[in-house]
């Protein structure tokens, strides 16, 4: 008998972000992609010194500004107003992407459409024939950061697994993803494929495997 959704409790987006935030050590330089990954910053306390990077030349992104604290000359890659924490700095776009391409970022966390068990990521277009696809900095980040974590729902709205054997959507980068946080599980990507590190409360192995279109492995 397979489990029904009433038998287990998927993690919320906030819980997924908090879980990922807890796994980031102090001292790392980290880029958070647009979407769920931006929630991670809310779960890293200021006294834990993690330096957040934004593609448009910002290192040391601070908490969101209050309504009276908006600096009109300071936006992030998502074009939202931000603050700069003490020690923050500004550079131009080529230097900002040198930080990425040059392998200086310890971690990038992106959203995803699909992740394959060889680390391939698809997160920028849903069709080869997408009218005017928009890639932004996703390919640079995925290929350049030392580690790539993907934070996404485990399945699509109509129940299809987003963890797959082979991505059907256009790729962002090949073999780049090192860890996936979903609402059902935390998985590392190793030579073997998806290795399950943690599962949502009450979820059984068989249910997780049934909702995943690639073989799952237990940690050794």
């Amino acid at each position, binding site marked *: 008998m397979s489990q029904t959704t009433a038998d287990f409790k998927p993690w919320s987006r906030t819980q997924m972000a908090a879980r990922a935030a807890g796994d980031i050590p102090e001292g790392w330089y980290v880029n958070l992609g647009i979407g769920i990954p931006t929630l991670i910053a809310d779960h890293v306390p200021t006294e834990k010194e993690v330096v957040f990077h934004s593609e448009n030349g910002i290192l040391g992104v601070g908490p969101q500004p209050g309504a009276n604290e908006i600096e009109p000359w300071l936006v992030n890659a998502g074009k939202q107003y931000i603050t700069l924490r003490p020690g923050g700095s500004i550079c131009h776009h080529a230097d900002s992407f040198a930080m990425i391409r040059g392998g200086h970022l310890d971690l990038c966390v992106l959203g995803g459409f699909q992740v394959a068990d060889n680390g391939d990521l698809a997160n920028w277009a849903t069709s080869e024939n997408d009218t*005017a696809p928009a890639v932004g900095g996703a390919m640079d980040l995925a290929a350049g950061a030392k580690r790539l974590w993907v934070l996404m729902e485990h399945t699509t709205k109509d129940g299809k697994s987003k963890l797959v054997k082979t991505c059907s959507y256009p790729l962002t980068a090949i073999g780049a993803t090192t860890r996936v946080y979903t609402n059902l599980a935390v998985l590392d990507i190793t030579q073997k494929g998806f290795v399950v590190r943690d599962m949502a409360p009450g979820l059984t192995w068989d249910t997780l495997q049934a909702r995943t279109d690639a073989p799952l492995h237990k940690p050794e």
Partner: protein
Amino acid sequence: MINKIVQTMADAMAGIKDGSIVLIGGFGAVGQPNQLIDGLIEQGAKDLVAVANNAGVGHVGLARLMELGRVRKIICSFPRSSDPVVFETLYKAGKIELEITPQGTLAERMRAAGAGVPAFFTATAYGTQLARGKETREIDGRMYVLESAIKGDVALVEAWQADRWGNLTYKLSGRNFNPIMAMASDLAIVQTQHVVELGTLDPDNIHTPGIFVDRVIHIPYGDPKGF
């Protein structure tokens, strides 16, 4: 005496030819040279290739230039915005050519042009559809894609401060693509919020040395608004 400061927009735009590759600074509304784009609209050059991160918002600035049918091709990383209606309409009608390039590759292609480097290898986009048809090479066990430099005929740049030699500073995230676009173009035209006396900018804190700048016009429009 060197004096790159011009008094009128007509002087700032003088000589821009049809068919020019025009690099346009800014990220979101910040550091975007809106008045220079309006000046280019007025000046009349057409059949342009625009290079910018985005493909315009609403019906102003770059979007207006495109709407007037003056842009043949756009090279950008993200042709979406809060209101990309002009670009999308032209693109669907086949009236504008689009070259999508990853944002960091876009930046490096211009930095490379400014530094006299005609092409470079990057791991970005290897194995994706954006690398199709491009030369690839294995270097020290990793695969890379050859990307060519983008040299601009003209750059439109927004600065915070400028002096008459064309030394520039930028304000916060207003820096973005502006310094590399100034480097990468034959004719770098700058609109600046403040003009200062030569010698008053701290030499340790000049972001763009004047060698990369050709013309400066004083446009104190205030804070960027909206996106």
